[in-house]
């Protein structure tokens, strides 16, 4: 019996985005990343080969965040004392891209300053040639102040600035426009809110090829099904021809998973949860892999063992299966 395989036909294409400027473009990056370009649902390679593989980023910070799990502290240990060292260690652990998180305050509780933010960014840019994303601490005024300085200092490197949200995007987009950078647009698990934010940002004349969208996902056990379905719906809408949703997606399973009790905490938890370290790694990988299968183009992770496992999963998804 010859089974005829039904193939979807779509009209839309996900935009292709390339980040990171190497010497030929006047930057100092030693590699770039290119994501997007799909014309099919994720990894439907019997319809068309997947043009670009999903990228794995490691998230680091300008100083080790006090609310991160002791397991992460234990792993990164001394490297985490310096953002440059941390970035190098992340590259050695298999990161293809770095996400640098700027803190709200310094060790003594004083507000972070543009000078410190720039210094941390420069250290990372000097320590590694990987493409860089820089995220503010998540408070509008501070984000704007720090990211403006960072955008200026990193001019020519084609980094991405985050995070644009509907309540705070103008300054960040302006900083990206002025310095030839990219932005990350985050909306809270809603197809229409994601789309709307993309429209608002592109209304400021930032080309769509410089926007990555973060649909927000939730962690395994803490709402991942919402994020998962929103991503599937965004991707379907894009392939149906809605260009305002046809952007590569960046998701943060490291952030999501490591704030859950299951990953973060090892004491006073039910015995049925099993070994802490392995559970934490599985929590991170089992948050990441379903998101990759629902359309993530960049996954931001925190633990190197997860990086290794998710890479193997992506390797297998990118291999074109021999169906004969």
């Amino acid at each position, binding site marked *: 019996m010859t089974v005829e395989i039904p193939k979807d036909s779509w009209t839309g294409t996900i935009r292709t985005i390339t980040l990171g400027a190497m010497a030929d473009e006047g930057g100092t990056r030693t590699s770039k990343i290119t994501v997007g370009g799909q014309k099919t649902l994720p990894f439907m390679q019997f319809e068309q080969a997947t043009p670009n593989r999903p990228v794995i980023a490691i998230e680091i910070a300008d100083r080790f965040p006090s609310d991160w799990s002791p397991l992460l502290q234990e792993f990164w240990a001394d490297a985490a004392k310096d953002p440059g060292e941390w970035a190098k260690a992340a590259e050695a652990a298999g990161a293809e891209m770095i996400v640098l998180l700027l803190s709200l305050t310094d060790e003594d509780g004083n507000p972070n300053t543009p000078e410190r933010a720039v210094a941390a960014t420069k250290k990372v840019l000097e320590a590694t040639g990987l493409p860089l994303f820089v995220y503010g601490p998540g408070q509008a005024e501070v984000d704007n102040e720090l990211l403006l300085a960072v955008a200026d200092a990193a001019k020519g490197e084609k980094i991405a600035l985050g995070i644009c949200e509907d309540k705070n995007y103008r300054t960040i987009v302006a900083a990206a426009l002025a310095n030839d950078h990219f932005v990350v647009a985050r909306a809270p698990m809603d197809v229409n809110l994601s789309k709307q934010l993309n429209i608002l940002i592109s209304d400021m004349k930032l080309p769509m090829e410089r926007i990555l969208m973060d649909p927000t996902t939730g962690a395994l056990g803490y709402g991942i099904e919402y994020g998962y379905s929103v991503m599937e719906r965004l991707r379907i809408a894009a392939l149906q021809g809605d260009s305002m949703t046809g952007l590569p997606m960046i998701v943060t399973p490291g952030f999501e998973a490591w*704030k859950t009790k299951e990953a973060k905490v090892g004491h006073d938890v039910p015995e049925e949860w*099993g070994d802490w370290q392995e559970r934490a790694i599985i929590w991170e990988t089992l948050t990441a892999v379903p998101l990759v299968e629902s359309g993530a183009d960049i996954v931001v992770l925190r633990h190197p063992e997860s990086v290794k496992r998710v890479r193997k999963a992506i390797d297998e*998804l990118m291999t074109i299966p021999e169906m004969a």
Partner: protein
Amino acid sequence: MALSGIQIYKLLPQTNCKDCGFPTCLAFAMKLAAKQVELASCPHISEEASEQLSAASQPPVRLVALRANGNEVKAGNEVVMFRHEKTFYNKPGLFLRFRDNENLDDIKQRVQKADAYTVNYVGIDLQLDGFAVEAASQDASKFEEVVHTVREHTHRPMILITDNPEIAGAGLRAIDGEYPLLHGATPENWQGMVEAAKQHEAALAVTGKTLDELADLTAKVKESGLDDIVLDPMADNLGMSLTKNTQIRRLALKKNFRPLGYPIITFPGNAPDAGHEAILAAHAIAKYAGFIVLDHFKPEMIYPLLVLRENIYTDPQKPIQVQPGVYELNDPKPESPVLVTTNFSITYFSVANEVESSGLPAWLLVTDAEGMSVLTAWAAGKFDAERIAKAVKEFDLVSKVTSKRIVLPGHVAVLSGELEEELPGWEVRVGPREAVDLPSFMKQVLT
């Protein structure tokens, strides 16, 4: 594929005789299309029309239920490719595999441990669904003995794995009277396997390296009178599995292709290590498997898989909610603080679990946010100062507390000013963003 009322009407006698209890044949057809009446209510239906109608009313993915001692594991009956289109119905069964050449005492202990395993997630007790035994020894009596031993230590449904019909018969004998799954039929052995499955009453898994091969074999098996078929597409990596499982589901749903309209079985346990096994199993849960056979039983792996299965199979139309109201955590006193959150079940359980395990007393005010989490509800305008103040009044907190301290989730710190205006006389505090940080906040800031 489901027929429309009009399509059904064309197959009816069209005499409007009313013997079915409906005024016209068309009215009856509409009820049939809506699956509100049985075709048997029409006494005049022709045999040919009846056949066509019953074929059309079959689900695109056949429901296969394995049974033992009152336990049941069902797979199939799915109607969509993506959960947001409707929902996924039958959670895939998670099975743990043993090989009959392993140490018998060791098997006993591991079965007991896995069988007794229960883990609580948002108020639901989650467990493994069953056990699989593989005849690695190629020895019928050995297989029978091990199947028997496993059965002595669990009441859950079983999957027996061998490609030898005689050995299959021996294993099935050990659990006669149950309804297990026999794995698996190949182009070489299928007649013997069908016979064994029929004789002992078992569902049969059919293996095939290609979909062509699979479809050929299911057609033969069905023709020989066995209906409960399960597909093993023999995909040994993620890309292959995603491709084949998607193609099978598409063929069943979109083309009503009967030879592949069956649930799928996968073997993540074939992975070289447990880390990758967990990933393959997670993929199988999200992407269309009906039975999932694991080799490792480790709580730190089973728990996340069981949770993922709950998540993916949650009905997207109905977020799991808890009742809005005031919940008492650790016998709160009038001077204990009031914590506020939304009625999304995961949000509620995260907060309640943290506070309960800390032993610190508090009143937990759960507002009606239509089942959304704090940030989502806030973005959607379902969790604001006005609604919180309304809930404070509605649930009459003033009669319960003397020190009027109310703690907002850190994610909605922006609401604190408005809430102070809405609740004169109350002290509004901003708590941590994540529930996990609540106990230390309560210890440091509230005492």
